[in-house]
């Protein structure tokens, strides 16, 4: 893993890679992240940079890899998935977050988005299924409950090395 991290750095900083930070644009060249629609969110969630430029140090990189590996527990994975899906970082998944999530899933471009009526119906269905306290948003425990019953999450939520 250290090798891959140092490959992302430009040549002159490679010796002290332990303390260097890789800018976001370089992280996005990783093959696993390249095709991922949540790439920006992933970088944002795992980055601990104070300047808010979403750059990642080696520890951040390790964190990301460990969460996505096969040996991470589903608790850890669902926790991080919740943070990734929470687009406005307010601690709950409300309607706007869900809308952005669905748009990310169906692809970029106008013709690949669901129209408004379908989006409404879909979000209504999702909230019906997962919102237990009926407050119109999904908090962390509701999310973890839903995800634990879903058989596909464990399989597809991991990057195999």
């Amino acid at each position: 893993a250290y090798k891959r991290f140092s490959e992302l750095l430009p040549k002159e900083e490679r010796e002290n890679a332990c303390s260097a930070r890789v800018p976001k644009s370089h992280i996005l060249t990783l093959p696993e992240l390249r095709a991922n629609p949540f790439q920006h969110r992933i970088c944002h969630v795992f980055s601990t940079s104070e300047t808010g430029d979403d750059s990642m140090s080696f520890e951040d990189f390790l964190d990301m890899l460990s969460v996505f590996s096969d040996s991470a527990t589903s608790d850890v994975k669902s926790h991080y998935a919740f943070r990734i899906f929470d687009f406005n970082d307010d601690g709950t998944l409300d309607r706007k977050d869900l809308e952005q999530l669905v748009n990310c899933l169906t692809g970029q471009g106008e013709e690949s988005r669901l129209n408004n009526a379908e989006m409404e119906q879909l979000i209504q269905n999702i909230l019906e299924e997962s919102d237990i306290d009926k407050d119109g948003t999904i908090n962390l425990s509701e999310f973890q409950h839903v995800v634990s019953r879903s058989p596909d999450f464990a399989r597809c939520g991991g990057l195999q090395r």
Partner: protein
Amino acid sequence: RASQQAETERLSRWKKWRRTSSKSLKKALSEVKGLSSYLVLWQRDIHSIEGKFGTGIQSYFSFLRFLVLLNFIIFILMFSFVTLPIIISESGIFNSTAAYISPKNIEDNCTIYEPSGNKGLVYFSAFLKDLFSGTGFLEMTSLFYGYYSVDAVGISIKGYDLPLAYLLTTFAYLALSFLWIIKRSGEGFMQNLVHDADPFQSYCNKVFAGWDFCITDPSAARLKHRSLHYELQMDLQEEKLKQKRAERTMKEKLQIYSLRIFINIIVIAILSGCFYSIYRVTVFSQENSSVSIRNDTGTDSVNLLVQYLPSMVITLANFIGPLIFSFLIRFEDYTPAFEIKLTLMRCVFVRLASIGVLLFSLLSQISDCGTDKCEPCGYNYKLYPCWESDVGQEMYKLMIFDFIVILAVPLFLDYPRMLLVTHCSCKLIQWFGHQEFGISDNVLEIIYGQTICWIGTFFSPLLPAIATIKYFIIFYIKKMVLIHVRRPAARPIRASGSNFFFLLVLLIGLILAFIPLGISIAHIPSSKACGPFRNFTTSWEVIPYKILQFPTGVQQVLFGMASEAFAVPFFMIICIIMFYFIALARAHKQVVEQLREQLV
């Protein structure tokens, strides 16, 4: 990391050593695990397919790998217990001998068996013909049942009862396949159960767990986006349709139901037409495939064609059937998900039942005792002096033809179509579009081949080897087809459900294979002219004969187990245990519901 370092300084030496050794052990284990992934067959290939095309198609390829392994193990089983003793005895290593006991109390007519094996040089065309039809020189090799006419093999001092070994190995490979499939489908079944128990979870499942993080290729990502979009749209549409359906009037309901019954009758009519034609073609082929004049290539090739006629008709039925079914189902107005399932079920039925019909017609020909044809021997000894080899030859021909078709379709249909679509921009051809890689069709194809292998192994012990090689080659062909020629289907199949479905259909194929095998072993008299069961009335008789040689105590126990006094209470106890588990599951479900209520 800093906190970990600070902690280690505070620990004693012993604990430090323990910690470092457990760390290095973990590292070593993970290295070994990484290396062992090289040893698993095709691990890299399947991984790259998963990255490019998603887990749905990957499940097809890992299913194929499972079948290769299964066939290989069956082959090892049959080879080591059945073929190897004969080879050892013939070559005389370890001071081995082979005992041929000539059958007593049997009419001489039954034991006449002269396979037209050519000794010496043959014409190349005759060689090819024999290779493809399993007659001629192939008939007397260890490929077919007729070779195993040995009754006992003695290796040094101990005797080895070949007929018993043959029968027991057959049961062993059937049991092994059964248990292995059930074990593999165990996990998939539990997931399916959980999934079905909460049908209202499907939206959350799709949205939160829909993205396959293993995809690395941008074009595959685009594909996944499109398929997710399509799936979500389909689900929403289905929901709207359901609401509409609930509001249907009585008159409309009546109309739809009568239309469905009518279409089902059409489907049954088509199926019976197919089966009847298979029956007639088999009878025709058996009556007309006679020994031909060696020099005349013209009649030779016609003869070959006649011999392959049943396989061709079956392949035609397997090809046309699905097309007709997917056309008809549109009129039946089911939900899209149910449509897919029903069409699939009908296709499965066509494929597996056609093998059954072929075997049934063959076996009825063999035991056709109309005009005293099988007086002394119990079977039609004039036409079929060694009928097990004949059945083995039919299975061999089916397998070879299936392999040829799988090789030919990409070469002659898909590749030109792909070339046409990419280079020619005329509207008609663009409307055809790219051929899709339909997962279900491919899966049914290989399950069909596997069923043939299971049935045929009893009659032709080296058939699993051919099946292993066949599936091995098919893997690479399908991989090439997927990458270069075809596109993945627009309608995705979810990975969690599909694995279980493949194994379920495979299990159906296995159980269907039990029926003709059971009839051949237990009901039809074994041929007296060849094979290890010459001295017994039927192949099954080896076992009672052997049991009678056991000490009396063991015999009494075994007879006791088979009698009604034991079987009925045993059956009742099993029913009670089953009801207990069902009740337990129901109680658990109720507890889950209650807990859910409490959460709100």
